[in-house]
C-alpha cells in the first residue's frame, strides 16, 4: 500500500475541501480545512469556534448557584464531570467537607456517566466507520438505561445539575439502587457482545490498525489526555496518579498500553472498552460501600450560596481526559474568573498533526478515535 504519492511522478492538482461544519461526520460543528492531494491529506486545519457560548464569561456573570446548573452543558455527554470539577475547585476554596455518602454518590454517578459517554462514543465511532444500521443501536440501548437512571436521580437525562458545591443534590432510593445493580450485572455481557461484533472484525481491524499513530512525545506536546494518551504509553490517570474523592478506597485498574512508538486508533478503541468494564467494577463496589445514612451536602444549597475568597484549581479525570477548573472568588455571590481546561480542546488540536498523510476515509476514523465533543472545545 503506497500512501505517498510524489508530485514529481504524477501531475495532480491539490484540492481544498471544507469538511464541515455541516458535514455529517464532524460530530457537531467542527470545520476542517483540508488540503488534499488526490485522496491524501497534505494539510489539515481544524477551525473551531462555531459553538462558542462564552461559558467562562457566563460563570463570571451568574451566581455560584446558577452556574452549577449551566456547567453541565460544557461537555454535554459527561456533565457530571464538569459539575464535579467546578464543585471540587470551589470546595478547595471554601475548605468545605464533603460527606462520605456524597462522595460515593459522586463516584457512582460519574462512573455511570463515563460509561454512558463511552457508549455514545462507541456507537458514533462505528457510524463513522460505516456500520450505520445495526451495531450503533446496541450501545445506545445500554446508554438509554443509564439515562433513565440519571433522569430519576437528577431530573434530566443529560443536563444533570446533580453534583453541587459541597455535595450532591439528591439521594437515590432503594428501587434505583436495585436497578443500577441489575444494570451492572448485565453490562459485562453486553460489552462482550460489542466485542464479538467489533473488536476482532477484520474490516474494523483494517480500518483502525496502523493509522493515526500518536507518539507519546507528540501527545505530551499537545496536552492530550485521557484514553488517547494512555494508548500512547503512559498510565496517566488522575484517579490513580493524583487520587481524589473516594477513589483510593476502591479497587480498579488503569488500563494503558506500553507502546513507545505510539498507539493507533484501535488501541484507543480497546482502552475505552476496557475502561467501561473498569467503571462497571467501580460502580459495583460503590453500590456495596455506599453508606445508607448520612448528609448529602456539606453546604446549604440555596440561592445565597457563597464561596470564600481566593483562587483554586482542581481537576478530575473525565472520559476524554483531564478536565480542570480554575476559579478566583472574592467571597461575593459571583466568581471573578472561571477558566476551564478542557480535554477535548487539546485532543482536537493534535489532529492537525495526526491527519497529515492519511486518506480522506481515515480522517473520520482518526478524528472519531480521539473522542472530541465540540461544545467542550469551544466552551
Amino acid at each position, binding site marked *: 500500500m503506497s500512501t505517498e504519492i510524489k508530485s514529481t511522478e504524477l501531475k495532480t492538482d491539490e484540492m481544498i475541501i471544507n469538511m464541515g461544519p455541516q458535514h455529517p*461526520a464532524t460530530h457537531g460543528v467542527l470545520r476542517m480545512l483540508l488540503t488534499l492531494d488526490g485522496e491524501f491529506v497534505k494539510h489539515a486545519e481544524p477551525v473551531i469556534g462555531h459553538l462558542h457560548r462564552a461559558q467562562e464569561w457566563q460563570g463570571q456573570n451568574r451566581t455560584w448557584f446558577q452556574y452549577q446548573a449551566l456547567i453541565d452543558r460544557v461537555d454535554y455527554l459527561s456533565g457530571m464531570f464538569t459539575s464535579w470539577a467546578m464543585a471540587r475547585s470551589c470546595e478547595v476554596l471554601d475548605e468545605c467537607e464533603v460527606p462520605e455518602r456524597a462522595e460515593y454518590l459522586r463516584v457512582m454517578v460519574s462512573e455511570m456517566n463515563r460509561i454512558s459517554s463511552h457508549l455514545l462514543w462507541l456507537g458514533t465511532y462505528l*457510524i463513522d466507520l460505516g*456500520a450505520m444500521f*445495526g451495531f450503533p443501536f446496541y450501545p445506545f440501548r445500554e446508554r438509554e438505561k443509564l439515562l433513565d437512571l440519571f433522569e430519576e436521580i437528577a431530573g434530566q437525562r443529560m443536563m444533570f445539575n446533580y453534583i453541587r458545591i459541597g455535595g450532591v443534590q439528591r439521594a437515590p432510593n432503594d428501587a434505583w439502587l436495585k436497578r443500577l445493580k441489575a444494570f451492572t450485572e448485565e453490562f459485562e455481557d453486553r460489552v462482550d457482545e460489542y466485542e464479538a461484533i467489533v473488536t476482532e472484525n477484520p474490516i474494523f481491524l483494517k480500518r483502525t490498525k496502523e493509522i493515526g499513530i500518536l507518539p507519546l512525545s507528540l501527545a505530551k506536546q499537545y496536552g492530550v489526555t485521557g484514553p488517547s494518551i494512555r494508548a500512547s504509553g503512559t498510565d496517566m490517570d488522575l484517579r490513580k496518579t493524583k487520587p481524589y474523592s473516594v477513589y483510593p478506597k476502591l479497587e480498579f485498574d488503569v488500563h494503558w498500553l506500553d507502546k513507545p512508538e505510539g498507539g493507533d486508533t484501535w488501541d484507543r478503541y480497546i482502552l475505552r472498552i476496557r475502561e467501561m468494564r473498569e467503571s462497571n467494577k467501580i460502580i459495583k463496589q460503590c453500590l456495596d460501600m455506599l453508606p445508607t445514612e448520612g448528609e448529602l451536602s456539606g453546604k446549604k444549597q440555596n440561592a445565597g450560596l457563597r464561596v470564600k475568597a481566593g483562587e483554586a484549581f482542581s481537576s478530575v479525570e473525565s472520559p476524554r481526559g483531564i478536565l480542570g477548573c480554575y476559579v478566583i472568588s472574592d467571597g461575593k455571590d459571583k466568581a471573578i474568573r472561571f477558566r476551564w481546561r478542557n480535554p477535548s480542546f487539546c485532543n482536537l488540536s493534535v489532529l492537525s498533526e495526526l491527519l497529515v498523510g492519511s486518506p480522506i476515509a481515515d480522517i473520520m476514523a482518526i478524528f472519531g478515535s480521539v473522542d472530541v465533543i465540540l461544545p467542550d472545545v469551544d466552551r
Partner: protein
Amino acid sequence: MNAAEIYKLSRLAIFWLSVTFGAVWVACWGVGVFIPSLITGKMPFLLQVDNPSTTVVFIADLLRSLTPILSLLVFIPINAMFMVLFERRSLALFTVRMGPNRHGFDGLAQTAADAVKLLFKEDITPRGADAFMFTLAPIIFFAPSIFGALPLLAAVTNNHDLFKVANLPTGIFYILAAASIPVVALVMAGWASNNKYSLVGGLRSAAQAISYEIPLVLSLVTMCLLAGTLDVVEIVEQQKGGILNWNILGGGALSGYDKLAPYWLNLVDTSFDTSAMFGQFYPVPWLSSIMAFVLVICTVLLFGLYLTGACAEINRIPFDLPEAESELVSGYNTEYSGIKFAIFFLAEFTNLFVVSSIATVMFLGGGDNPIPKWILDRLPLEPISNALGSLLSPLIKDLMFIDPATFWAAFWVIVKVYSIVFFAILVRGTLPRFRIDQLMDFGWKRLIPLALILFVVVVFARTWVVCHG
C-alpha cells in the same frame, strides 16, 4: 423470545408477496394469454372466431411479446418498494426495535408514503450543474436493472410459454452487460452535480465497479464453464433434481451420488450394477470422487466470491464507498432530491433483487425444489397434487391460468432470493465499511487471484468428473 415481531415480519412478507405476485400474474395472464386468445377466438367457452384477420393476429402477437417487459416494468419497482420495507423491518429486528409500522397494515404502505412524500418535494438542480446529465443519470441508473433482468424471466418461471420469448442464447452475458451500465450513470451523476463530494463518489463508484466486476464475471464465467452454456434457462434446466444437483454444490459434480443414492440406500430394489453407472459419472473412480469434492469446495467459494462482487457492484455495505456518509456526505446522490433521489433509492434495491436473482439462477438451482428427487418421489404428494390438479383443471388446461410447475418455480425463487436479500441485510447490520484503498487491495490482490485460481482448478477438476450427467 421475540415471536411477535418475527411473526409480523413473516406475515407481512407472505401477504405482500402473494398479493403482488398474484396481481402481476393476473395482469400478465390477462394481457398475454386471455386477450390474445379472445381476439383470435381461441379462448374456450367464449366467442369462437374461425379465421382471424392478420391485423388481429399481429395485435395478439404484439401483446404476447410485450407481456414480459410490461411485467418487469410493473413488478420490479413494486417489489423494490417492499424490499425497502423488508430491509427496514429486518434491521429493526436485529437492532431490537420495531421498525416502521404505522402506515397501512403493519407499515405496509410506508415506502409508498415515502415515495409520495419524495414526489411532492422540490426537485432541486444545483447551480452550475449540467441539468441534462443531472436528469439523465437516475434514468440510466434505473433502466438497466429492469431490462437487464429480462433473460432471467424465463429462467425463474420454469420456461413458461409466455416468457420464453424473452430468453436469449447469450443470457448471462446480456445480464452482465446490462449490469455494467449503471456505473456510467453514477459517474454522470457525480460529475453533473457540480459538487466535489459527488464527484469523488462517482469516481469511486467507477473504480470500484470496474475492479469488482472482474471477480464477479470470473465466478459466473466459471459456472458457465461447468454448465457449458450461457443460456440461463439451460443452466436452470441442468440443475433440476434437488440440492445435490445445484451449481453451488459442485455444479452437478454430485449428481452421480445423487442418482445412485437410492440404490445404495436400498430404496430401489433392482439388481442393478451401480459400479458401472458410477463409472459413467466418475470415469476414474477415486480421483474423480476427490475431484467432485474439490469442485464442491470451489463452487461454494465461487458463490461467496459472487456475493462479494455483487455487494460491491451494487454499493452495499461493506462496499458502499460511493455514498459513504461519514466521508462523502452521500456521494454521488448528495445533490439529488425529490423524485430523482427516489429513483436512485429504488434502483439500489432493484439491483439487489436482480443480483440475488442471478445468484439464485446461477448457483441455487433457480426455481428448483431443494429436496432430491428420490426423496420427493417417496413423499405421499401424488394424491394431493392429483386432487388439486383435477380441481383446478379448468384453470390449468382450458384457461391456462395456472401452470403448477411455474407456480412452484416462482415460489422457490422467491424463497431463495429473499434469503439472499436477508443475508445482505444481516451483513449490512453488522459490518463497517472498507476504506477505498483497502477495497481496491481486497479486490485486486485477493478476490481476482482467488477467482483465477478457482477458474483453473475448476477447469482441471471438471475433466475428471461428468457434471450434470
